[in-house]
């Protein structure tokens, strides 16, 4: 757990400004039109070189959409994504290709992310064939074998097919494919949520090791707060497509200032039966509102214990309350004082 101790270089490698991803949804009826589903509704953040930003939130809050929006796998409805000084938002396929080398993604379902008809050697080599077609077959194979070795796969498995591997091994293949081009940023879209706990630890440690070796920046999307805490330097909490709190890892867990973050953290089990029993849990009422018709003002007000008139009228902006801490709540001080756990 020394990842938080390293101080990354203070210069953002990636700046995301007010990005929005809306999906048009067909309405029923004779005079049907489309209404936007606001999957990501104005998110800002900076990412430093070598830093890990954890993105947490419940199902359907826009975590994966955010990750895909940054990589231009989904069309942005608005906003800028500035990668090393260049705006990559809305670039065409051809223009985007030169950045693809530096931006990679690891997927949630390890087996589904591998083409079942290709050998894993071909799968891992594919990025090389796309970006470095001048490499000879031997050089390519050598690079693939080195990378397989680095991620903990036996290089002699190179001619096997994905269905011959376990979930954890498939995820290692996914990591190898993402790493073969030596990218600078990897979006990890719930990379371990489909794996069992012992394997999760192996994959997390593999990713952390690679981060240290190659100076990677990571955007680590997960709904598992313990894992995010383990791997991240900073954490962003998403709710209904909005960032509600962004803070340094330690600050977020020790001093959460948004009522939603507090509720999330109170739900994390503590591996001590006495403490766990004594702990008071904040149980939120109701369900996540529909992103087709989000609440006015603060998106969290329908479930917030502190909600007042102001929350319905005015959308709280993400405000800096400390150098490493931003929160989007009108009454964050009250929430901070009321905190029980």
């Amino acid at each position: 757990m020394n990842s938080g101790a390293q101080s990354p270089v203070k210069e953002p490698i990636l700046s995301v400004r007010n990005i929005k991803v809306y999906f048009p949804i067909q309405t029923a009826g004779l005079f049907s039109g489309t209404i936007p589903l606001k999957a990501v509704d104005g998110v800002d953040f900076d990412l430093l070189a070598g830093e890990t930003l954890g993105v947490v939130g419940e199902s359907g809050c826009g975590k994966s959409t955010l990750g895909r929006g940054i990589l231009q796998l989904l069309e942005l409805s608005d906003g800028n994504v500035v990668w090393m000084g260049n705006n990559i938002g809305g670039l065409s396929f051809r223009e985007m290709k030169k950045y693809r080398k530096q931006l990679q993604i690891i997927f949630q379902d390890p087996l589904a992310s591998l083409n079942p008809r290709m050998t894993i050697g071909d799968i891992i080599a594919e990025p090389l064939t796309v970006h470095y077609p001048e490499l000879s077959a031997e050089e390519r194979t050598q690079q693939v074998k080195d990378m397989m070795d680095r991620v903990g796969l036996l290089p002699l498995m190179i001619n096997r097919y994905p269905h011959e591997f376990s979930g954890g091994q498939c995820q290692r293949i996914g990591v190898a494919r993402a790493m073969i081009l030596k990218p600078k940023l990897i979006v990890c879209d719930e990379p371990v949520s489909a794996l069992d706990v012992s394997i999760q630890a192996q994959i997390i440690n593999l990713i952390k090791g690679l981060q240290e070796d190659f100076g990677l920046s990571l955007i680590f999307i997960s709904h598992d707060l313990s894992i995010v805490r383990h791997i991240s330097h900073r954490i962003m909490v998403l709710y209904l497509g909005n960032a509600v709190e962004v803070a340094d890892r330690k600050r977020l867990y020790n001093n959460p200032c948004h009522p939603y973050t507090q509720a999330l953290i109170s739900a994390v089990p503590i591996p001590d039966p006495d403490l766990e029993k004594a702990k008071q849990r904040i149980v939120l009422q109701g369900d996540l509102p529909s992103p087709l018709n989000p609440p006015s003002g603060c998106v969290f007000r329908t479930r917030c214990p502190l909600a007042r008139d102001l929350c319905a009228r005015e959308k709280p902006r993400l405000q800096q309350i400390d150098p490493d801490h931003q929160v989007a709540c009108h009454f964050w001080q009250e929430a901070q004082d009321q905190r029980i756990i």
Partner: protein
Amino acid sequence: MKIKPIIPDRLESISEDAVKGRSLWHDARRRLFQNKAAVISMVILGIIVVLAILAPYLSPWPYDDPDWGYDFPGPPNAELKHWFGTDGNGRDLFVRTLYGARISLMVGILATSVSLLIGVTYGATAGFIGGRVDNIMMRIVDILYSLPFMFFVILLMVFFGRNIFLIFIALGAVEWLTMARIVRGQTLSVKKKEFIEAAHATGVSTRKIITRHIIPNVLGPVIVYMTLTIPMVILTESFLSFLGLGVQEPLTSWGVLISEGAKQMESAPWLLIFPAIFLAITLFCFNFIGDGLRDALDPKDR
């Protein structure tokens, strides 16, 4: 089913540089060869194909000249080497059945290839592009579907005259509709898989995504449907020949032979029985192979 010992095999291969993986195709082939009906069908079909190819060397009689020294039509006669008898014009039925096999199988395979070519290209394009393009392309297929196919073929025949190549094109042009629908459906489901997104994220070009990632993954159902299309086409060709729209004399196909045999069913039943047996067996074989392939390529659906 015998279980082969795999352990010694494995041990040997570990000492080698790289372990050879077993691809899904490899697994499918193994399952196919375990299916008795499919294997027997392949053997029988192989025999029929060989017979059709070697037809001129198997019998002393030509397919287009009558045997003046025998009855018109004459029953099977082993001494004169008229194994299946002769037809109303005194021509040897055995040779004619095998020549008919040539035409019927050729029509089946070529027309299916035409349908495969058009159907896969069209379906994969519609499915991959999606949205409005997909909508328009599939509505065109729907419209073509609703045209009466027989009428269409008969019109073609009347306009351009009876021509064997026209039959291939006409049949292929009709059969591709179903193929296009199947390929489009498969493409739509494969397109949503994460490995396609991974390819996008890597910057693989659209053409490469279709050829490397989509087509190999939709090929299974296509192969199955192809083996089921061949007998369908053969049957349709027989039907056209039965109506008198098929191949031209003295060439023949099973459909023509059956049509002629049916006319003299009571006086000379062998004229109907032999070609009908060949046709039925061939159709059976193709269907069994198609069944076996379906089970082999998609064992989950069994």
